[in-house]
């Protein structure tokens, strides 16, 4: 991919016209209502989106209406059914909170608007160079078709009042579970978080992690997953309900942790534990832990469907999400506590100070606590992995 390398140069050469274009976008966006299709299972995210709408309304005359989803794929299906009906303009979905396989599916079907990210003025705070986390979605180059907005990193949560020593590696989950039968589970792998648990183990256990960066092949899959299945077969009998039932998603599992039904929960948001304590959803003694070798991390994006009725407004919202002030507000544990996607090196002193001034909490890990960020396997692995899991463990 040569394009991302060229972009900064092009941007520098045509600075003034780009700004003028942005003014056009702002003008066109004024008065629009952006239908933001975003998973609605998290009340804090919903409240944050409401705040975003209030701000963009005030600043740009663009209002935001969240369309809460139980699963992001609902929005994809909606766009597909619109195309099925020949509705190539004026579509009902303006902006989608999207990741990985859903992005891949929409891109493969040409259902996305763009590239647009490089035209967003505040994209200058993001490291979009080739291979940078914000330019890759599950190892697939984003190519400006979706804009980053929040950082996700896989973490575990436990209640320090009940558990003295959580497992230090994925391998240690097996003896831990044997010592604490029935106290461990993971979300159903048809759910993103359940699949991530398997991927985390895969990344740690695979003989050659590099192979995971390539599209999956049968041979590579067999080789890479053999230790994973051995590990899982040893783990499963000691899991909650002997590994025959699973919570639907990570929120339900967090509730099970609160109810005392299991001892470990998991999340893609390192701040979620501190946030949940603050919200009364977890005991004060809940803490975050990550395996020693680090965990999978990725960036959450927003994308615009090809037929969006309010593409201009959607771009204004995508840009606002990248504003350093917005990102600092988002990282505030009292608001959302989601880590920023901006490149600290690109921030000016004022913006940096805003981040430094954010409050902290006992259950909020520092970046150092979180260890290294491991790359997501290529998206094709996830599909193959969940299929194989279902084949092996569905009775």
């Amino acid at each position, binding site marked *: 991919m040569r394009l991302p390398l060229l972009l900064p140069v092009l941007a520098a050469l045509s600075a003034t016209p780009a700004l003028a274009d942005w003014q056009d976008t702002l003008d066109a966006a004024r008065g629009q209502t952006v239908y933001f*299709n975003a998973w609605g299972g998290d*009340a804090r995210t919903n409240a944050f989106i409401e705040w975003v709408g209030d701000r963009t309304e005030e600043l740009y005359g663009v209002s935001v209406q969240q369309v809460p*989803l139980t699963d992001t794929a609902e929005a994809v299906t909606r766009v597909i059914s619109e195309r099925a*009906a020949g509705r190539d303009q004026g579509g009902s979905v303006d902006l989608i909170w999207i990741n990985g396989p859903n992005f891949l599916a929409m891109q493969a079907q040409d259902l996305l608007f763009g590239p647009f990210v490089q035209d967003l003025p505040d994209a200058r705070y993001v490291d979009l160079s080739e291979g940078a986390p914000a330019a890759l979605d599950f190892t697939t180059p984003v190519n400006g078709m979706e804009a980053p907005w929040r950082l996700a990193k896989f973490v575990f949560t436990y209640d320090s009042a009940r558990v003295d020593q959580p497992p230090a590696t994925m391998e240690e989950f097996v003896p831990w579970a044997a010592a604490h039968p029935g106290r461990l589970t993971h979300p159903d792998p048809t759910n993103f978080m359940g699949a991530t648990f398997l991927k985390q183990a895969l990344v740690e256990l695979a003989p050659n992690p590099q192979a995971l960066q390539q599209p999956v092949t049968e041979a590579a899959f067999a080789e890479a997953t053999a230790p994973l299945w051995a590990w899982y077969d040893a783990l499963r009998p000691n899991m909650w309900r002997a590994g025959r039932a699973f919570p639907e*998603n990570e*929120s*339900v599992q967090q509730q099970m942790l609160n109810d*005392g039904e299991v001892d470990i929960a998991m999340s893609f948001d390192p701040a979620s534990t501190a946030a949940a304590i603050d919200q009364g959803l977890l005991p004060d003694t809940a803490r975050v832990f990550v395996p020693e070798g680090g965990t999978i991390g990725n960036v959450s994006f927003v994308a615009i469907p090809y037929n969006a009725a309010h593409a201009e407004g959607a771009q204004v919202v995508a840009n606002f999400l990248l504003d350093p002030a917005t990102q600092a507000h988002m990282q505030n544990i009292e608001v959302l506590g989601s880590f920023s996607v901006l490149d600290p090196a690109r921030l000016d002193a004022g913006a940096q100070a805003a981040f430094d001034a954010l409050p902290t909490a006992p259950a909020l890990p520092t970046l150092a606590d979180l260890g290294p960020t491991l790359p997501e396997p290529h998206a094709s692995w996830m*599909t193959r992995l969940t299929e194989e899991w279902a084949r092996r463990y569905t009775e």
Partner: protein
Amino acid sequence: MTRSGAEGRTLRAVVLTVLIVAVLGPIAAGLWQSLRAGLGVLPAIGAETLSLDPWRALVDLPGFGTSLRLTLWTGFAATGLALLLAVGVCAAVHDRMDRRASGRLLAPFLAAPHAAMAIGLAFLLAPSGWIARALAPVMGWDRPPMLETVNDPWGLALIVGLVAKELPFLLLVILSALSQIPVRAQMAAGRALGYGRGIVWIKVIMPQVWPLIRLPVMVVLAFSLSVVDVALILGPSNPPTLAVRLLRLFSDPDIFQLLPASAGAILQALLALAGFAVLWLCDRAGRVIGLWWVRRGGRGLSAEPGLWLATGLATALMILGALAMVSLLVWSVAWRWPWPGLLPDSWSLRPWTGAGQGVTRALMNTVTLALSTTALSLTLAIAWLEGEDRGHFPRAKWAERLIYLPLLVPQIAFLYGLNVLVLRLGAAPGLVPVVWAQALFVFPYVMIALSDPWRALDPGLPRAAAALGAGPWRRLWRVKLPVLLTPILTASAIGVAVSVAQYLPTLFLGGGRVATLTTEAVTLSSGSDRRITGVYASLQAGLPFAAYLAAFLIPALRFRNRRALSGAAA
């Protein structure tokens, strides 16, 4: 033919046209889309070759057989058990059940939406739930016991959830059927011939009740075989029932999964058909065996314990249901509520105040939809019945069956196809398509609730009015509608309850934009905050409950000095 006869024909023709264009056509078109996609034809995603591959992919899903077995087992068991208990309860306590009082008792259960009750039941029954917390000190549990009380692989919790919700519906249906049968006289006749109460019930009363409740039982069966939200919350998770798997396929990132999903949607419709066939066979067999049994003349004085067992079980289920709703109410004002607390550690109104704007918008949408769908359905139903009166038509049985169609075809089988159709017609997703889609399901219930009281109206009243020179419209407005105020309000309350509970139609045809209490509650139930879910579910159950309350109070106030009308119907 008189002028009013011609008017009647016109009225009925209009209603029939509306029914065919707005009800049957769309269902057929939706099914057709699903059928095509299930056979590999969905041009939108570039699938254009007719093949059986989607069906193969469906059958090859891991655990497909288990899912199918589970679906059939839970669907039939829940329907059978609900029917058995409802009949048992009616047999045991019918003579001491005042129709009005029982209607009042059942209203909250009918008003509580499935999803809300399932969420509450899940909390009640879970190993860390209310019941376990109450037992914990006695049993010495410091941690939730390792019992599979919800999401169990046998689907028992799902069956309990379905029965708890269907039982009150069937009770109401049976009570209303009983009002058309001289039960007291027949009971006396049977007992005077030496038959025990239970046996008279089975041999004499039930065979007459059955034809009147067959369609509602079919509705319950079709629903139980295809339910999504309850199965998601209470059912087994790996593999889940067929309907849950279909929803997952419909929302799979790989859009080609739409093809096996559509095949599954058709399978779901076939399952319902097969269910009806089984019901029909049972009906035939029951008739033959029943006649043989009646002719033998066995007096059987011993059915009594069975009846009391049924009543006990039914009471236990109703208490479970009530506790489930109460638990949600408690959650909605809780702050910290960890195991093993029987009550929250700390209380707060923040779930109510914090939900703010979202709740208000959802509430407004829900009320708007409920009022407009109910008004539309009520108008259609009155037009239908009035058309019948003016044209002096007999009851058209075939037309009544058509009304039931939307309730008999599993929603998932045609709603996706319907969505494509609506978009193709160029209608924007929003309130209007949702009103229409909801009305598909609201109209049948309103019609069912209204038609019997309407037809039972003393024909002397309009005749007397006519003799006094009142024309057909005056007779309708000044005589029939006021006299039928109670049943009309009851039908409206049922309409409101059905509208509020609609999930899939609102989701699909609203393009996800029309947020109602139910769509929000189901979305939130996939999150972990039982407190917010409690807020939505309380409102969700409270709205229809308010409608039922109004249906009781308005006639009581309006006709406070008209004894015959102040509480004529349940």
